[in-house]
């Protein structure tokens, strides 16, 4: 596979595509000057608070706001009756009340809103709201939810989607058959900056909202509908975002904050606490997955049968798309001739689930990679060899019938992680407790410690699938200031930490040969960029900036031809100058432009995709795929169940690294989130109630949990994409979880069919319970 060659007109400019240009936002971030949404302030602003249901399922008999209104400093108490427009919202299915009116479907569901002069007064008033609830028994088992006699939580029933794959012969048999049932827990995105924003009522009756979000325009559509405002009266500007990982794709406080601001005529700020944040956004779907794999004695996959049940919780969020992904990627990056998959996403009274990094592919990967290890064991084969033998490659057919057209270096990635050097076994003398599981708790001096090695590979779609009109918009303006050419780039792409800001700057530098590029704030005065999700922004908004730059360049060369004579093709841009190929005349861009500027706006679309057939799952649903492999090395205290991950190694094809340093950062951060799901991250939900809504009880990896990494980045150029890029962000989150758990199995010999693995699982106290 050769990388796509891009025509470069200008000589290399500093900080262009392929360099580790420093982020445009890192100086303000290290100085504490970067304005996160939680830092916003406006003259005369009020503070909003949300009243939430303490019950996972209940009927609301009555709501009494009288007492709440008497609290000093309170300016408004609003209920569902005050929603100016559509009382429901939702990204894919409009099923979620802005404020509940008759039925509560999850613990923490918003019921009323308060605005007060001080956050403490707002919370005090929220406590004084009297709601008469009739508690109902919550429906919390997703398998039970799809039984015909289960209580129906929505008028449409409890089934959000049932996606299927029917491929090949359903009755085929195989020499070796293995089965397994696997579970993944509800994971939280756990971004560090809780939900917050500032809504400012405008003189035209509209609203300006400054908010940390992932997709400005999908927020805008939902806001306008629920506020009863035309879309041009709702303006959204991206405030500083403290991480996202999927959790900011759905609305949280956006409508609420705007309602309070419009009602009071004052700016209103809302800011969730960490505890409220756990109730304020969707989580990763917990999954229960039953798999059966059939293979020949030589280790060729014959069939895969899978049933995957995803708990969507109380509202649909992006469950339909998560379900489609779990289905399409259910078998992993392998060639499998006969496939039967049934994946269900269902409503329950558990917390709503939706987007999180890896989006349906994470859950399936844990199951199919666990099955591949189990199969290797049954066949007496090396697990990496088994994977390589069945590896998908360019030209392979997915179980959905889609032919994988771009690079698919599955065997190559596995070979690379397998061949990386191993860290030294054993421990240096003198003994350093920090290098042992349990660390300085002094739980072992090396006795009972076993080392394990595990491998996994995963894949996932890049960008939106199944026929959605996926596009990104960018506006680029070239002008001269102080005798030097300058470029402004404007898009609505949400910089959530991943680095799409500097990517846009790098693309403009390379395309126009101009080093001074400024990125304007992301807002809704420019067209949609789509979501900062699905590993799509570098491809999509990168592509839009590239197209807009090409259009600007074409107009500049036309102008040169007009002023200097000849045709535009006689001219090129070199080092900030326009050069005529025919007679060598040179003119600086700044002189040519004078006081004029050239501005162009372009939309970029990837090629069309198609829905999966509802009965067979067949269809070209995806535009491209990202692949990553991991090797994990763990030390396990087999007596106490304590684990230390010694090293993570990974190989990933990123197509083209626009910014190699950012690529590594994404791979490291994504791998850490996968490690978290393998070892510690679980929102513990008991009878519909979250038991650990805090960072003291919901654990994410610390710097001691996360080991050093070895990273091998391949750049195999996808011919479909600008510069050959592929998305980077999600793939590392997918394969790191099963690799870590495979290593734990290698060390302990236990089945470990549930992620995260707990100490009691490691020592074998729960083996029966899982089955």
């Amino acid at each position: 596979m050769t990388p796509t060659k891009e025509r470069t007109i200008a000589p290399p400019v500093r900080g262009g595509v392929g360099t580790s240009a420093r982020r445009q936002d890192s100086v303000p971030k290290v100085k504490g000057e970067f304005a996160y949404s939680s830092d916003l302030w406006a003259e005369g602003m009020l503070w909003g608070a949300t009243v939430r249901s303490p019950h996972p399922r209940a009927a609301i008999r009555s709501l009494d706001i009288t007492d709440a209104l008497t609290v000093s400093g309170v300016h408004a108490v609003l209920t569902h009756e005050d929603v100016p427009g559509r009382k429901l919202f939702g990204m894919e299915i409009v099923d979620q009340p802005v404020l509940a009116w008759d039925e509560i479907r999850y613990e923490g569901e918003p019921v009323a809103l308060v605005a007060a002069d001080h956050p403490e007064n707002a919370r005090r008033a929220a406590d004084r709201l009297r709601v008469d609830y009739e508690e109902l028994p919550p429906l919390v088992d997703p398998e039970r939810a799809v039984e015909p006699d289960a209580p129906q939580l929505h008028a449409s029933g409890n089934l959000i989607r049932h996606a299927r794959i029917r491929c090949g012969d359903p009755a085929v048999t195989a020499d070796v058959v293995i089965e397994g049932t696997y579970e993944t827990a509800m994971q939280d995105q756990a971004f560090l900056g809780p939900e917050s924003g500032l809504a400012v009522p405008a003189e035209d009756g509209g609203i300006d909202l400054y908010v940390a979000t992932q997709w400005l325009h999908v927020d805008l559509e939902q806001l306008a509908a629920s506020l009863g405002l035309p879309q041009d009266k709702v303006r959204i500007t991206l405030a500083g975002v403290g991480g996202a990982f999927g959790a900011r794709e759905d609305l949280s406080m956006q409508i609420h904050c705007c309602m309070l601001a419009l009602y009071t005529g004052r700016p209103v700020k809302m800011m969730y606490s960490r505890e409220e944040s756990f109730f304020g956004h969707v989580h990763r779907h917990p999954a229960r997955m039953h798999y059966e794999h059939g293979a020949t004695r030589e280790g060729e996959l014959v069939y895969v049968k899978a049933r995957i049940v995803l708990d969507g919780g109380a509202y649909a969020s992006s469950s339909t798309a998560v379900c489609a992904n779990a289905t399409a990627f259910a078998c992993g990056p392998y060639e499998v001739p006969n496939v039967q998959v049934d994946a269900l996403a269902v409503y329950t009274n558990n917390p709503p689930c939706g987007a999180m990094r890896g989006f349906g592919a994470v859950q399936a990967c844990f199951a199919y990679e666990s099955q591949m290890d189990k199969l290797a064991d049954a066949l007496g084969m090396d697990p990496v060899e088994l994977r390589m033998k069945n590896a998908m490659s360019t030209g392979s057919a997915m179980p959905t019938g889609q032919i994988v057209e771009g690079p698919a270096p599955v065997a190559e990635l596995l070979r690379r992680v397998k061949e990386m050097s191993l860290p030294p076994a054993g421990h240096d003398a003198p003994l350093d407790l920090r290098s042992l599981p349990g660390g300085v708790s002094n739980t072992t001096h090396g006795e009972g410690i076993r080392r394990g090695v595990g491998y996994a590979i995963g894949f996932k779609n890049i960008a939106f699938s199944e026929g959605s009109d996926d596009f990104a918009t960018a506006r680029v303006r070239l002008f001269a200031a102080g005798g030097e050419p300058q470029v402004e780039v404007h898009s609505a792409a949400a910089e959530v930490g991943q680095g799409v800001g500097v990517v846009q700057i790098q693309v403009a530098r390379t395309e126009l040969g101009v080093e001074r590029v400024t990125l304007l704030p992301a807002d809704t005065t420019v067209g949609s960029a789509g979501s900062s999700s699905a590993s799509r922004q570098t491809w999509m908004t990168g592509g839009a900036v590239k197209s807009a730059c090409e259009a600007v360049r074409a107009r500049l060369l036309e102008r040169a031809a007009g002023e200097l004579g000849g045709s535009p093709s006689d001219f090129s841009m070199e080092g900030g100058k326009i050069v005529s190929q025919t007679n060598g005349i040179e003119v600086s861009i700044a002189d040519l432009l004078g006081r004029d500027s050239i501005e162009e706006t372009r939309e970029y679309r990837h090629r069309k995709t198609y829905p999966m057939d509802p009965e067979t799952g067949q269809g070209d649903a995806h535009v491209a795929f990202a692949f990553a492999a991991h090797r994990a090395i763990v030390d396990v205290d087999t007596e106490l169940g304590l684990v230390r991950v010694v090293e993570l190694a990974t190989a990933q094809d990123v197509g083209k690294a626009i910014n190699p340093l950012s690529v590594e950062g994404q791979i490291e951060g994504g791998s850490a989130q996968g490690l978290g799901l393998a070892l510690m991250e679980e929102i513990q939900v008991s009878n519909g109630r979250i038991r650990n809504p805090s960072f003291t009880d919901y654990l994410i990896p610390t710097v001691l949990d996360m080991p050093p990494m070895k990273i091998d980045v391949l750049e195999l150029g996808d011919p479909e994409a600008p510069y050959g890029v592929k998305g980077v962000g999600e793939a590392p989150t997918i394969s790191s979880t099963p690799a870590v758990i495979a290593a734990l199995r290698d060390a302990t010999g236990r089945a470990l069919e549930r992620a995260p693995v707990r100490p009691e699982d490691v020592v074998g106290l729960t083996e029966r319970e899982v089955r």
Partner: protein
Amino acid sequence: MRRISLTVNGVKHDAMVEPRQLLVYFLREQLALTGTNVGCDTSTCGACTILVNGKSAKSCTLLAVQADGAEVTTIEGLASNGEMHPLQKAFHESHGLQCGYCTPGMIMASVDLIANNDAMSDEDIRMGLEGNLCRCTGYQNIVKSVQQAAGEMRSPAST
């Protein structure tokens, strides 16, 4: 209300505060020093780390009245004469941040760590920053940034 008197980033402040007011909200809301972030409210994540009399402290679990008479340094007070602190430069240069929400806390914790430890291994840095969470970076470039800054701060050239 209680009267407190403290020095923040070299500037003396006298203020009236509620006895229950947390130091981080005093800094953010009364002094408008919003560089110090609140991530968890339970002193787990370390995003609110500042220096109190030169020692790193999580300002979400200190009361403003506890800082009476203290010398407080926040991220805004780290640069001197318009020149970024070596740690600020290193986090910028070595890509020690993504969303950046943890960064002020990471940097302030590292100031104390470097000041109180001689040559540190990566493992020493990891031990020292265990109380500061980052969700974006996987910590690799944070360790690298601190190592880079520690080297610069100890080199004879920098005084």
